[in-house]
């Protein structure tokens, strides 16, 4: 209780804590959004976006087929490709792959930390990405991507933890399909999700951890198959 952090944090209601330069908490819309855990396959198949108020600063949500209401997501996978597609200024497109599919990531001048990280990281590498959902509609359907806030190089263990965690969260959501949960109801109305299909997706992700490919023990191959050309 005597920790000196407490008085330091105190300030009269309308005073500014000048030291506190963290991203401002959106006062109008309450707390920082939770980073949802969703597999790539499910993320890719999502196309229902909405805001909960007309305010231009209201957060944008993407509802996934099993009912994850995402404004922010946290994903872990293998960075397999990156390309600077910017004309002039840096603008990176990258691909992060999990056992079920791939996430697409775009980072430009408004994501300075992620842009810096992408410039440095050479694929393949295990990465963790926290970022905001982004949806683009070129006219023939919506394309989901992630606008990263942070990208960090992590190890295979963190990747496995993420798969377990995401499997558990997805499983919980699958079991709410058909219930009175408002997000689940909305998802059912829009997608009519097939529980079996998403069960198989979770199984696919979990199975990828049980038959550990041999190369994972040899970290400098970065988790990729090395093809012995002499055998072909």
């Amino acid at each position, binding site marked *: 209780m005597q920790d000196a952090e407490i008085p330091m944090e105190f300030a009269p209601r309308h005073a500014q804590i000048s030291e*506190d330069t963290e991203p401002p908490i959106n006062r109008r819309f309450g*707390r920082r959004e939770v980073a949802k855990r969703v597999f790539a396959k499910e993320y890719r198949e999502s196309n229902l976006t909405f805001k909960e108020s007309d305010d231009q600063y209201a957060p944008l949500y993407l509802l996934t087929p099993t009912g994850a209401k995402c404004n922010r997501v946290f994903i872990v996978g293998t960075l397999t490709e990156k390309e600077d597609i910017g004309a002039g200024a840096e603008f990176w497109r990258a691909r992060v792959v999990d056992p079920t599919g791939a996430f697409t990531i775009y980072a430009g001048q408004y994501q300075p930390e992620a842009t810096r990280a992408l410039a440095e990281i050479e694929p393949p590498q295990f*990465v963790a990405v926290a970022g905001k959902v982004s949806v683009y509609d070129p006219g023939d359907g919506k394309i989901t991507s992630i606008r990263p806030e942070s990208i*960090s190089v*992590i190890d295979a*263990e963190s990747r496995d933890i993420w798969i377990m965690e*995401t499997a558990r969260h997805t499983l919980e959501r699958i079991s709410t399909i058909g219930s009175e949960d408002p997000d689940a109801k909305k998802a059912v109305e829009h997608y009519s999700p097939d529980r079996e299909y998403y069960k198989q997706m979770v*199984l696919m992700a979990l199975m990828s951890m049980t038959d550990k490919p041999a190369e994972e023990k040899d970290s400098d191959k970065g988790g990729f198959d090395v093809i012995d050309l002499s055998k072909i």
Partner: protein
Amino acid sequence: MIKEIAEQLKTRFSEMDIEVPLEEIESKLDALINEYRVPVDEAKRSVVNQYLRKSDIPELVKIRDIQSEGQWVSLKAKVVQLWTSESESIAQAGLIGDETGTIKFTKWAKSDLPLVEEGKCYMFKNVVTDEWQGRFQVNFNKNTEIQEIEENIEVGSSVEEITGAIMNIQSGSGLIKRCESCNRALVKGSCGEHGKVEGKYDLRVKAVIDDGKIVQDILLNKDTIETLTGITLDSAKEMVAEALDPSVVLDALADKLVGRYFKVQGPKIGRYMLVEEIQKMPVASDHEIKELIAQVEAL
């Protein structure tokens, strides 16, 4: 389920000296939940508010249950800490606590209320909840009544635990300087209370941890940082001296923490969890993986 909620509410009402027949609560809940399809939480809220309005006593709540702003509530709590305030519009400010946790309070000068003392327990009637920078607090104003009470309230240390991934590290982390007299972190070499001072070095991390369901701001102190990352106060000073840039420490800490999974434990005070223990989250065993697979298959 309705019966259970009704019993809960009845107990809560009797604690507030409001006697309502159980059947009455039950039938109101039943109508809201089963007939009007109102979510359970909303139904509870609606019933509680109906009776509170009737009896006109703000609900006696526990600190942990303060989760929205602009609510009139009453609290039985102990004054845990009083802070010095620079502002003339504030008579007193600090922390009050009950067995479920602590919360910041502000007593406005205009309210003309008696002074409270550290370590004493009070009944605070008619206080209003507020939110500032993402955390809840209570304000005492001229409608508030403060009565000292005899009973001693054990303030819950409210040690909590969360296992999740660190999302980011905020500025104000890394190698910082603190005022020697009051321990406040210096901003550009200046203490908010004591002005320009020499200051002493310290290590600190302000971060956000997220388990996919909740978000928690955490504070790591020097000892925790040293044990966890191997970056010590001395090595941090050397890094800065070499790079001529204080942000190298923050970058090095971010490399070791951001995007990684940890289990953290500590008391939650206001918006922050003051981390007392932090561990790397262990990777799942083959057995756990197989168990989860079996669970999916059984679904």
